[in-house]
């Protein structure tokens, strides 16, 4: 970079000018130089756009929640024992599953904002209703559902009509879960539907669905209450919650499957 006035304008001067590192007294010269060379000016416009994209793309990373290992206190045990992450196949699978949730739902950021208010009420109230309904009915031995999977068409038609939105019972056989059936419920917002699924070992998960007309779509969100975990989101006028007594990764894969089935 040349600091004396009157010196020829170099590539370095142009970058320094763009980065605010060029001495004030040389600005006019650099700007004159650029004005006389449209191609050069275009190139630096592109560099400027790059810098904006750099901030737009990576900037939001600063708001991502930190993993526990990066949150204080750091000095637990002086030996510095810590579980080192190694790329075991299992971990990669787990990471892939979490990524799928991101891909299906849209990660973080701006599009989570819509949960508060809106036609379906707050997300916290919604997922609390879903978890409560889950707890009540998964333990039911004789009457876990009102309408069984053998009448799936009737079940889906009936619930769609009561919720005022076309509903589907997603296939979760890929995750080892088959539809048991469903029931109509009511909560503070009006009608809601619950679909129950069961795997070969008799473990049950439920989908809880409530109309959310007019409320914006959201990405996946996660809630936990005791041993029960839930992923919930809003999509296309319906609020969904997938609830189960499963680990987060398994449940997220199921939630992803549900979302995928509804959007295929």
């Amino acid at each position, binding site marked *: *970079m040349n600091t004396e006035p009157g010196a020829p304008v*170099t*590539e*370095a001067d142009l*970058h*320094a000018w763009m*980065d605010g*590192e060029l001495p004030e007294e040389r600005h006019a010269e650099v700007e004159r130089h650029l004005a006389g060379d449209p191609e050069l000016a275009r*190139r630096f416009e*592109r*560099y400027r756009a*790059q*810098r904006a*994209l*750099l*901030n*737009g*793309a*990576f*900037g*939001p*990373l*600063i*708001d*991502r929640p*930190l*993993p526990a*290992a*990066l*949150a*204080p*206190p*750091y*000095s637990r045990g002086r030996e*510095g024992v*810590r579980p*080192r*992450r190694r*790329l075991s196949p299992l971990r*990669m699978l787990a*990471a*892939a599953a979490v*990524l799928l949730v*991101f*891909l299906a*739902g*849209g*990660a*973080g*950021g*701006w*599009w989570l904002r819509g949960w508060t208010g809106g036609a379906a009420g707050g997300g916290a109230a919604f997922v609390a209703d879903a978890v409560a309904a889950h707890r009540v009915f998964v333990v039911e031995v004789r009457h876990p559902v009102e309408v069984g999977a053998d009448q799936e068409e009737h079940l889906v038609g009936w619930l769609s009509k009561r919720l005022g939105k076309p509903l589907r019972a997603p296939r979760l056989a890929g995750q080892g879960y088959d539809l048991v059936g469903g029931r109509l419920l009511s909560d503070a917002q009006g009608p809601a539907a619950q679909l129950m699924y069961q795997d070969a070992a008799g473990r049950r998960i439920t989908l809880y669905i409530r109309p959310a007309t007019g409320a914006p779509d959201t*990405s996946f969100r996660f809630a936990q209450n005791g041993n029960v975990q839930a992923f919930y989101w809003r999509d296309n006028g319906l609020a969904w919650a997938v609830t189960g007594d499963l680990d987060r990764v398994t449940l997220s894969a199921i939630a992803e499957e549900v979302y995928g089935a509804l959007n295929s």
Partner: protein
Amino acid sequence: MPPPKPPPDPPRSNDPVDERAIAAQVPRLRRYAAALAGNLSDADDLVQDCIEKALANRHTLRDVSRLGGWLLSILHNLHVSGLRWRRRRGPEVPVEDLADDLALSAAPADRAEVRDFVRAFNRLSEEHRAVLLLTGLEGLSYREAAEVLGVPVGTVMSRLARARERLRVLMDGGTEQAVRRVK
């Protein structure tokens, strides 16, 4: 009239840096590490190593106001030595696609642009990525970036010019403008 009370002691700058001060820098370090390494899991390992190393060496930091740059240079050195180590072990399968992840946290209208940008950015050399991030994202001056990277200021400037031109061609196509000698 009583004499004016002496102002409270300013924080002594030779106090060793505490955990809280480091913790406050962690989100920024992690952002830089993720953009540099191209994925969040490697970034988390890097940042974790960086925190450990910083805590172990905290007495060597003379001026607490330089904590941010000091942490960045520790991270940079860890990254460079990690690269050497990884090169010996051969390439690893990427755990996640940061481009897709970042695109999804952008507004729908910007997604394609963000994804393309991150992909192009990931094709740059580590050196080029580092210099673009330090000056463009972290807002460091040429001199500060030179300190973090442990190179002369002139090297920062020529790397920056080449990195920008490389990235322009990766994004827009065309041929690379032979960036004239920068000094």
